């Protein structure tokens, strides 16, 4: 890991919805260094989640450039490989499949690797143990608490050892105790694994856990913050 190299480089990104009537991003620019923990904050509707989704390649921008680890996402024909291997995504709503066990949910991204069934299962178990849920591997999400579900979602995001972790309001649906636990977990993972962590939160207190706080307003980054 080279803390001076740029992991994520967002340049003047514009994104609109509903045939241009809704301007989600109006020229957002942001750089995140490798291994850095950055929190993006701002009022509701400022475009912070949209920016995170574009970095996560869940959608494509109308214009502008997003370069991740030296690769321009616009030049990638199939973004699935990028989503499977280069970034891990944690959503506000855990987005786990309710019919599968915690272990099976964690294994989902691994279907896009060469790992065997046994290797996938063993790795999922190890990741669940890393988020202190080793004993809940066979439990479906419906029988887990909100905090536990979010920890399973974090384990799933780490399934293919991505160098970047993107968390969209990961504590938004949790009580303060569970939210703190999830935040501590994300910080621990960022430190221990050296991953680049970009966290979106409207909660300034949550955002203050980051090394740098980026503020957005009306679809732009208005304060890139300092480390």
């Amino acid at each position: 890991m080279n803390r001076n190299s740029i992991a994520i480089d967002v340049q003047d990104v514009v994104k609109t919805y509903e045939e241009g009537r809704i301007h989600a991003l109006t020229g957002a620019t942001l750089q995140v260094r490798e291994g850095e923990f950055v929190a993006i904050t701002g009022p509701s509707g400022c475009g912070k989640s949209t920016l995170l989704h574009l970095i996560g390649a869940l959608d494509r921008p109308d214009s502008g450039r997003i370069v991740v680890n030296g690769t321009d996402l616009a030049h990638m024909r199939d973004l699935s490989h990028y989503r499977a291997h280069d970034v891990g995504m944690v959503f506000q709503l855990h987005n786990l499949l309710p019919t599968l066990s915690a272990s099976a949910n964690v294994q989902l991204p691994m279907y896009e690797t060469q790992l065997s069934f046994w290797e996938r299962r063993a790795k999922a178990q190890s990741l669940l143990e890393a988020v202190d849920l080793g004993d809940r591997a066979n439990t479906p999400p419906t029988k887990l608490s909100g905090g536990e579900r979010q920890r399973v979602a974090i384990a799933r995001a780490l399934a293919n050892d991505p160098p970047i972790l993107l968390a969209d309001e990961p504590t938004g649906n949790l009580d303060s105790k569970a939210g703190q636990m999830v935040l501590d977990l994300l910080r621990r993972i960022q430190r221990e694994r050296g991953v680049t962590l970009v966290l979106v939160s409207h909660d300034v207190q949550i955002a203050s856990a980051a090394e740098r706080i980026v503020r957005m307003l009306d679809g732009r980054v208005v304060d890139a913050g300092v480390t």
Partner: protein
Amino acid sequence: MPFFVLIFRNLLRQRIRTLLTAVGISIGITTVVALGVVTHSFKSTAKDILHAGGTDFAIGQAGSADLSFSTLTQEQLDEIAAYPEVDHAIGLLMAFSKLGSNPYFVQLGIEPADLEHFEVPLLEGRYLAPDATDEILLGQEASSQLGKRPGDTVELKDRSFTVVGIYHTGDVWEDGGAMLPLATLQEYERKSGLMTLIYVKAKAGTDLDALTARIEEDHPELATLRTLSDYNEVDQGMQMMDALNLAISFLAVFIGGIGVMNTMVMSVTERTREFGILRAVGWRQRRVLQMVLGESILLCLIGALIGSILAVIFTRVILIFPVVRSLLAIEYTPDVFIRGFAVGVAVALLGAIYPAIRAVRLSPIQAIRYE
């Protein structure tokens, strides 16, 4: 979990819907397989008649709509018998009439003197007397169905015949019917001097290909029948049966496909968010496609399995009818079941292709936000 298990578990999420769809598909497959078994069995049974009496081949009228409508003359029989390679030629008149509960009781008219040549193995009694007019030989199955033994009488078209013997040839049509003097059958069928088929036994060492080719060349109005494919070419009924089979298969694919499409569209729509999540965690479009098609194919294979079992049950049940027993011996061949499963896969692909394309075209973020 293995990908296959994931596909299987997805089907189990809506157990009732999966079961009902599989049963719906199975009805089409039952039709395809049962019809295939019956058609094949009928052909196989019909093929036996081509070599009846241990002969080498049969001759019928070329272009007859159905081989039972073939009409040949005594003159033609004499001409065939005159070929130097022919050891003996036997004329046979075939007729069907209602007897007891059997509306298609097969009657074979044969010269009593030809019975020995025709190698009809007797179980009881004796052959027809050379000058007999009112004697009849019953096949073993017919004897059993009618409860008639040698010495009993049988009423056929208001005429009484005395049963003089019981035979068993192993051919379903022969064993389910009767043999009576050719002249008698010609008389009451009003086909004086006419017959349906000529059976030929060639002399040892004869090149049968050359002989049959020469007969057809000399007599373009005749068709020689050695194999089932010869029979298929001549008999329009067989061709119609094949065409009907094909048409029903297409219909089964179409109707089944609509049912599967309905199920898969519902399933894909309900799981829009799930597909968004799978795409968001890195699943390629191809893997989502594999999952949707895999679910559809598995569903249809379950339907094909149920359909094949039902077809076997159905084809066993129809054998309780004496008329069926006297017309065909049911045979199960792998190709009929393979065709049933192939129809199942065709149904699966037809029904799933639209929902599968719909599933893979979803943008991950739009799908995740789908309510």
